């Protein structure tokens, strides 16, 4: 049925351990080469950690699954080397229309906030994302990617996780220090370890139809509540790449999934929907071709802890939400982003294993936020009681004329990263240091346009991967000499950590980056980013002398109005559980 996409078939190679009979010993194994497992492998590879990545299948995600990749995920994908591919293939949309029964209640135009590299979201079929990530992973020498390698048993003893892997040529064993389980909602690893995931199943079914439009159709998002062509239910339409439109029909719990999927039942629904859009029954019917049909239910649940000894759960294996708000793959990529640098420090002996508890704490905080938001959307879209339905319909009625009503319409709140304000890794602002704006300790960094060596670029592409001390000045010439004193040139630091006068704590690398309103460089090998319109300074409420300590995953760890090396060291220690 699928005509626009050809699934790649990845090559299986006989693992050398089958013939040798030797146990493979590696520091990290990632199980599951979906978006999150591939992301985790690429994150670790960038940190210099060799990764064995195993997947029981040999292709990408089949059919219509993830659709919407939000700004934070795109920024992370930039770091994994596939941001441009995803954004150029993906479809951007700004106009969203909300309909209630026969009428358009209101529309919105999500004009992207200016001066950010990436838009709020792009729509792209999940198989493209996986294809790009898999190609990237295959090109990295530090990633040993093995398709059609299936885990059949997992055991933890002391500091070692032992895996038995099945292939068509036989079995082999792997011993690893750390196992990252990215093996999806039904996680076999979770089951083999006898671990629970708690939550609830929503008593509803949704029909997904992907259709290829034969003529132009607007790149907009439409959401219908109780439309005449599908009474009492909701319908969502989204544009994806290749003129493929994804339509989600709410079916209700009593629907028979097999009946609903039959073309003779699906096609009339779609025709009625397109007829309703055109607003005229006498127009010739739009031509379209059906590419994919499936029926899904969903659950909202998460594990009590995302780390169990030396096994770390990421993505759907750890937490699942309703699809409203695109919080599945988006939050899974943030899991990978949060975990990579922490695992690297632990593997290098630069941080205690306790740092990985903070992975679980921070991502549970984020998962709970996602669960709350997606559950609220679900409750609005599919009211469970008469009173709830009455309120929902009243909101939709008021939304037509009143701004407060529009703000209450909840057809999915777009995935945004969690502000980790309660994280134990944050250093609170010093008394007397006052800051306006959103860049509080724990905040995910805002982007800003900058110029480096005459090249226009973006702040987020200049920081991350390591801890960064971001120092704001008005003029490079007026840089506080203390910054130079605490900043060692990268070359000096690499050869002799901590010996060149730079700030280091437990040999944890800390790069200095200067943001200056005026052009120039500060010398000493320190990158100097010009902030010609002062947008970075405004978003970070920075004054000359203001310093931010940024985590490798681009969250704010601490900030001060002036540099104090002792405070920076203490904050790095705190952010790495070395305090």
């Amino acid at each position: 049925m699928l005509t626009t996409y050809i699934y790649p078939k990845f090559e299986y190679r006989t693992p050398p351990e089958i013939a040798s009979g030797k146990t493979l010993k590696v520091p990290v194994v990632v199980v599951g080469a979906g978006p999150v497992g591939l992301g985790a492998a690429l994150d670790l590879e960038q940190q210099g950690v060799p990764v064995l990545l195993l997947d029981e299948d040999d292709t990408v995600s089949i059919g219509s699954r993830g659709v919407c990749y939000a700004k934070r995920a795109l920024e992370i994908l930039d770091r994994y080397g596939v941001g441009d591919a995803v954004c150029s293939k993906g479809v951007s949309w700004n106009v969203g229309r909300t309909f209630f029964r026969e009428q358009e209640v209101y529309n919105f135009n999500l004009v992207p906030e200016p001066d950010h590299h990436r838009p709020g979201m792009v729509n792209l079929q999940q198989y493209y994302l996986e294809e790009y990530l898999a190609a990237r992973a295959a090109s990295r020498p530090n990633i040993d990617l093995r398709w059609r390698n299936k885990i059949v048993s997992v055991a933890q003893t002391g500091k070692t996780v032992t895996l038995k892997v099945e292939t068509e040529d036989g079995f082999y064993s792997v011993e690893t220090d750390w196992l990252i389980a990215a093996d999806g909602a039904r996680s076999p690893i979770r089951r083999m370890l006898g671990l629970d995931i708690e939550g609830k199943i929503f008593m509803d079914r949704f029909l997904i139809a992907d259709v290829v439009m034969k003529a132009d159709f607007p790149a907009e998002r439409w959401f219908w509540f109780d439309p005449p062509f599908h009474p009492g239910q909701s319908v969502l339409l989204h544009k994806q790449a290749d003129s493929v439109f994804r339509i989600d029909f709410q079916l209700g719990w009593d629907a028979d999934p097999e009946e609903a999927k039959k073309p003779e039942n699906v096609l009339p629904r779609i025709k009625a929907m397109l007829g309703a859009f055109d607003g005229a029954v006498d127009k010739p019917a739009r031509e379209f071709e059906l590419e994919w049909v499936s029926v899904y239910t969903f659950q909202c649940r998460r594990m009590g802890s995302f780390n169990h000894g030396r096994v770390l759960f990421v993505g759907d294996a750890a937490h699942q939400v309703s699809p409203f708000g695109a919080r599945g793959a988006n939050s899974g990529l943030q899991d990978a982003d949060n975990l990579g640098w922490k695992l690297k420090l632990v593997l290098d002996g630069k941080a205690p294993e306790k740092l990985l508890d903070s992975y679980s704490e921070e991502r549970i905080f984020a998962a709970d936020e996602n669960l709350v938001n997606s559950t609220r959307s679900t409750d609005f879209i599919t009211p469970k009681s008469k009173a709830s339905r009455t309120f929902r319909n009243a909101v939709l009625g008021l939304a037509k004329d009143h701004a407060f009503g529009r703000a209450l319409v909840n057809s999915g709140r777009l995935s945004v990263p969690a502000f980790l304000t309660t994280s134990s890794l944050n250093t609170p602002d010093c008394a007397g240091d006052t800051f306006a704006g959103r860049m509080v300790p724990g905040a995910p960094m805002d982007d800003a346009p900058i110029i480096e060596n005459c090249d226009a670029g973006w702040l987020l592409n200049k920081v991350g991967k390591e801890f960064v001390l971001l120092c704001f000045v008005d003029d490079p010439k007026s840089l506080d000499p203390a910054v130079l004193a605490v900043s060692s040139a990268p070359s000096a630091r690499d050869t002799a950590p901590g010996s060149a006068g730079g700030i280091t704590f437990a040999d944890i690398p800390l790069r200095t980056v200067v943001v200056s309103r005026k052009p120039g460089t500060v010398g000493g090998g320190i990158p100097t980013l010009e902030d010609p319109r002062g947008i970075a300074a405004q978003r970070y409420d920075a004054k000359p002398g203001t310093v931010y300590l940024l985590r490798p995953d681009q969250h704010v760890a601490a900030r001060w109005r002036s540099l104090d090396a002792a405070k920076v060291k203490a904050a790095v220690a705190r952010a790495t559980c070395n305090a």
Partner: protein
Amino acid sequence: MALNLNPNFSEVGKRYFNAYSPGDDFYEMLINAHRDLSDEQSELLNARLILLLANHIGDIGTLREALNVAREGV
């Protein structure tokens, strides 16, 4: 006091990073308040709630305006 028809929810001491959060907080509380009630009980809850809020607002002019806006769409 003119009837405020713009988004107006907030909670003292709470910091919001997304504009939709305070409204969604309220809406969830409202729906939860009706959980496990019969339709008749829900109607009674709504009536009590309206009376409580009306008394809190107090200003008859504002209430008249709200009643008119509410009635328009029914």
